């Protein structure tokens, strides 16, 4: 009796669901989702999301204590803003039907027509909505990464508008070019998990934004130092952990390719940490914790485009090269050129991403991944040229668009906080709160309310 009642209720519910307006009934001939792949990608999506609060800690430790909340707020704001933008508009611009190889069509506006069964084109063994969620997390971390370049000086209102415009006008088209069937897909550029789309685009956009906004006050006179490296270490640990979802998940299935991506990701991060620390140990005589975690992140960036295409041994070589390269970029080149990329978004993500994209053209192996192409060491000189085109296109497009977006916003308002607000610190002047105690002096009594 009970069972009969239960099945009646269940069938009633099923009927209600399939006939509910707004939820499309998928055609029966579409392939069913693979449960293993689906479970894996849902978990990977959560791992990639965790990278953004991880980044908030990574960056938060690097700024002065009067600005730690402002940079964390930027990361949290991106999670909120892009999550909504992606559902309304971002996904369809990235993965909608190809329009002139440049942008996705609008058929998935508001995710209409996307249901519980797999898409015919992307992630064909997982529900389409799971693919949407997984890709969303990449859009979030990319926009968050840029915030490190103009840390400690941008107005929050400007940041909100910038993130929405940048994600819509830069990230979404780039994701379409590389992953959504756009011209870089057709050209044969390899980008397993986002070397160009995520790291070069955020790095170059960060550099341009740092140049447009100008240096932080006092940058010429005094060193601006990290206020809490333990926060940075914790953030780096979360990034490394989340990166497994980022790279292994980009196999879009629980399979051998995901295993390869997982292994080379860990290996390259480790080799990056080793090589950065070795470089600074030789250079100034001290192995630093900040260097170790920076090197690990540089290694993670470098392996991102290559993760599903290169062998573990190749990932060791990539990690050993990218550490010293990024170390020189942040310790020498930045000083020489004098731009104030506060937290080295270009020095690590731009430079490391460029290296990784080109190294993919060198080390990619078709024997490991039949969907890939052989690189230079296997005698193919074509792939590295294609990779160079993808890198160049990303530099030009992301750089130019970021410049135009900031100039456009600048027509309506100042991009920077006032000198006085900057001096006070963005936590108090923009957000009305302090990270540690109530004031800079450690004074912890304040009168309540207005006097």
């Amino acid at each position, binding site marked *: 009796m009970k069972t009969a009642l239960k099945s009646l209720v269940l069938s009633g519910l099923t009927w209600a669901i399939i006939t509910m307006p707004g939820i499309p009934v998928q055609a029966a001939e579409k392939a069913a989702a693979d449960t293993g792949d689906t479970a894996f990608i849902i978990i990977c999506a959560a791992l990639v999301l965790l990278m953004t609060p991880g980044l908030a800690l990574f960056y938060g430790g690097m700024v002065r204590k009067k600005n730690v909340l402002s940079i964390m707020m930027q990361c949290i704001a991106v999670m909120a803003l892009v999550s909504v933008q992606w559902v309304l508009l971002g996904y369809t611009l990235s993965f909608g039907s190809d329009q002139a190889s440049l942008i996705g069509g609008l058929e998935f506006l508001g995710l209409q027509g996307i249901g519980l069964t797999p898409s015919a084109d992307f992630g064909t063994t997982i529900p389409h909505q799971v693919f949407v969620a997984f890709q969303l997390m990449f859009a979030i971390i990319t926009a968050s990464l840029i915030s490190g370049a103009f840390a400690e000086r941008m107005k929050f209102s400007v940041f909100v508008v910038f993130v929405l415009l940048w994600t819509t006008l830069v990230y979404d088209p780039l994701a379409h070019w590389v992953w959504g069937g756009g011209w870089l897909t057709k050209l044969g550029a390899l980008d397993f998990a986002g070397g160009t789309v995520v790291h070069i685009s955020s790095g170059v956009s960060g550099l341009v934004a740092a140049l447009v906004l100008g240096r932080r006050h006092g940058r010429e006179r005094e*060193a601006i*130092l*990290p206020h809490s490296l333990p926060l940075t270490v914790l953030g780096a640990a979360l990034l490394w952990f989340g990166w497994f979802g980022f790279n292994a998940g980009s196999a879009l299935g629980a399979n051998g390719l995901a295993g390869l991506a997982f292994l080379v990701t860990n290996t390259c991060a480790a080799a990056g940490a080793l090589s950065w620390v070795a470089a*600074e140990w030789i*250079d*100034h005589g*001290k192995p*630093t914790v*900040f*260097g170790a975690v*920076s090197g690990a992140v540089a290694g993670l960036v470098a392996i991102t485009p290559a993760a599903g295409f290169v062998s573990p041994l190749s990932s060791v070589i990539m990690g050993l090269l990218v550490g010293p390269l990024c*170390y020189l970029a*942040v*310790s*020498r080149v930045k*000083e020489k050129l004098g731009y104030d990329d506060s937290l*080295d978004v270009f020095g690590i993500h731009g430079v490391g991403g460029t290296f990784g994209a080109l190294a993919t053209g060198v080390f990619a192996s078709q024997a490991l991944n039949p969907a890939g192409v052989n690189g230079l060491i296997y005698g193919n000189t074509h792939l590295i040229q294609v990779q160079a085109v993808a890198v160049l296109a990303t530099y030009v497009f992301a750089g130019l668009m970021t410049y135009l977006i900031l100039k456009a916003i600048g027509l309506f308002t100042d991009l920077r906080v006032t000198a006085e607000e900057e001096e006070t610190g963005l936590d108090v002047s923009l957000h009305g709160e302090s990270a540690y105690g109530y004031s800079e002096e450690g004074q912890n009594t304040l009168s309540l309310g207005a006097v």
Partner: protein
Amino acid sequence: MKKIEAIIRPAKLEELKKELSDLEVRGMTVYNVMGRGLQKDIKQYYRGQEVSLDLFPKVKVEIICRDHWVERIIEVILKVCSSGQIGDGKIFIYPLEDIIRISSGERGDDAL
């Protein structure tokens, strides 16, 4: 009455407190301070950017005492805090005009 100000290495504070307590010198005011003298700068590195640490964390101990106690207290401070290296700190002695205990209004030596 005199005020003794001793700037010492932070690691010596606990031992100094104990040795002074043995002399029944209990009252003191302690500050965490930053300062510099002959001690050489310490180099720090942040992503290859070199920074000089040229103010060092020290502890300042203030002790108020009768004139004839001064030498005995100095002796204890020297015994505990001197390692023979630069960076051990300095002692300053000041004459003191008056003392008032806030709870009772007692003045001068009675307030000690």
